[in-house]
């Protein structure tokens, strides 16, 4: 550049100083300081993801502006001027310089205003960008890159709970829905499971996550919808079984997290949604039992009614009972026994639930007693001695020696 100004016909020192001043002011104040301030709007954990996904726009704009500034310097050189615009009028040069300066400043200002106006939507833009990238990549390569899943996991941990996290969950829902709508033979259930557990579920169960009922409910809705969709658009098999297990586990985790925050509606919602999923009696028991340990009876009552319905439908006179239904009975009886131990009206409720079952086994009391023994063994085997003892005590009440 300096070389350009050594010829006597080139720009004089005053011009150079003015142009350089504009360029430096522009870089420092119009592009530099706002960029620095803008970075402070982004949470620390998200900064890298933001710079990778959306930071390119700033760099592109900066390069364009630098090129335009360089053009001013070049136009200021009489030799270039003669080659580029031979025989033009004297006013052509100042018009060009002024025009370019105006464009440079306008682009900088527009970027500044745009960034400040959208600073509260950074997280939204980021969630949308990752989802768009993942969908675009899947369309081309039939897979979602590990980097996209990793970034979704980062957002799940770092985003503030509330509105922003709900927007993130909506984008996860969009991605899951897209993957669910792929024909069964090409559908990647493992990938869907990963998104559900490492993004959707993690976003509300992560240790550092602040509690928000709306987010919990949204996550449960996504899980429930995925299950329903798979159930009605899949012919069955190992892949759907894997998703069922993943969804069941996620719902249980969310329910337990809600329990620790005393959000009983979310726990009840988790129990309700779990009850609609096959082979989740254990998860319902865990939620009911955890509620009792935390001093809440309502989720345990809900879990007992749900498990009781499954038991009533499965144990029909003269009909063989499969292992999953037996497990439902074990977990139902375990919870009933725990509630019975509470005494008072809780005991009254447990007795009423038991009467229903006893009435069902009216002609097969031995069979019922065998089930009590099996239930104790089931809980003993997993070292849940508390529940095993509760069932044993109940057995002694129902079947006195």
């Amino acid at each position, binding site marked *: 550049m300096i070389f350009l100004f050594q010829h006597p016909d080139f720009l004089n020192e005053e011009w150079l100083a003015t142009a350089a001043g504009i360029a430096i002011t522009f870089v420092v104040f119009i592009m530099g300081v706002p960029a620095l301030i803008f970075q402070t709007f982004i949470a620390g954990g998200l900064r890298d993801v933001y710079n990778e996904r959306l930071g390119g726009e700033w760099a592109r704009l900066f390069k364009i502006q630098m090129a335009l500034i360089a053009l001013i310097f070049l136009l200021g050189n009489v030799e270039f001027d003669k080659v580029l615009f031979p025989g033009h009028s004297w006013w052509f040069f100042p018009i060009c310089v002024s025009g370019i300066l105006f464009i440079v400043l306008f682009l900088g200002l527009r970027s500044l205003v745009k960034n400040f106006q959208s600073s509260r939507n950074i997280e939204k833009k980021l969630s949308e960008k990752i989802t768009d990238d993942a969908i675009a990549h899947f369309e081309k390569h039939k897979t979602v890159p590990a980097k996209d899943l990793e970034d979704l996991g980062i957002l799940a941990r770092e985003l503030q709970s509330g509105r922003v996290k709900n927007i993130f969950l909506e984008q996860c829902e969009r991605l899951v*829905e897209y993957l669910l709508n792929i024909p069964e033979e090409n559908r990647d259930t493992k990938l869907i499971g990963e998104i559900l557990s490492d993004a959707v579920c993690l976003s509300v169960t992560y240790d550092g996550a602040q509690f928000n009922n709306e987010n919990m*409910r949204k996550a449960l809705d*996504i899980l429930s*919808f995925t299950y*329903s969709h798979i159930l009605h658009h899949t012919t069955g098999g190992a892949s759907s079984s894997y998703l069922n297990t993943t969804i069941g586990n996620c719902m249980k985790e969310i329910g337990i997290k809600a329990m620790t925050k005393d959000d009983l509606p979310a726990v009840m*919602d988790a129990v*309700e949604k779990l009850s609609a999923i096959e082979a989740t009696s254990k998860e319902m028991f865990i939620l009911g039992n955890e509620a009792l340990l935390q001093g809440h009876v309502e989720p345990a009552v809900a879990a007992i009614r749900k498990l009781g319905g499954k038991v009533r439908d499965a144990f029909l006179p003269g009909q063989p009972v499969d292992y999953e239904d037996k497990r439902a009975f074990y977990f139902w009886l375990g919870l009933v026994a725990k509630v019975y131990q509470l005494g008072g009206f809780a005991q009254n409720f447990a007795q009423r639930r038991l009467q229903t079952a006893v*009435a069902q086994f009216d002609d097969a009391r031995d069979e019922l007693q065998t089930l009590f023994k099996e239930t104790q063994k089931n809980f003993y085997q997993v070292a849940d001695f508390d529940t095993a003892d509760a069932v044993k005590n109940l057995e002694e009440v129902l079947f006195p020696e």
Partner: protein
Amino acid sequence: MRPTIKLLWIDDNLFHDLTEKRMALYMEDDIEPHFALDATEAFYRLRNEPFDVVIVDLRLPPGPDDMWNNYRENNFQKFGYALLNTVLGPQKDQFDHLKETRFGVFTIEAQEENPELFDDPIHLSEKNFKMKTHAYHENAFIDFIRHVHRR
């Protein structure tokens, strides 16, 4: 012992204003309560399981499924109506297992505001429509469910 009524109650306020009524249902020996919070969740539960009684709130959120896209215009909010219309109307064949199911409506709106409920394809009995009021006690609601079941 009374036969058990398998109930599906669809309402987005189940975990807010209606908590007491929801818990009261759990305590009834002859009612096996199930709940859904939006039209999508209800649609899939109804498609999957038989129920004796289905109680619907008219003002429901649609839920995530695209099937409600036709209704999502002009600030449409009555996805409870859309659900009933779908289950008892164009997609009736998918719900053969609900032939014996009794449908009821429990909503904040007045009966006169919803004349379409009593026409094709829903054909709701006027006695199966109940308006939500603050003074509506749990026992009265449980009686309403038993009444819908008996009809």
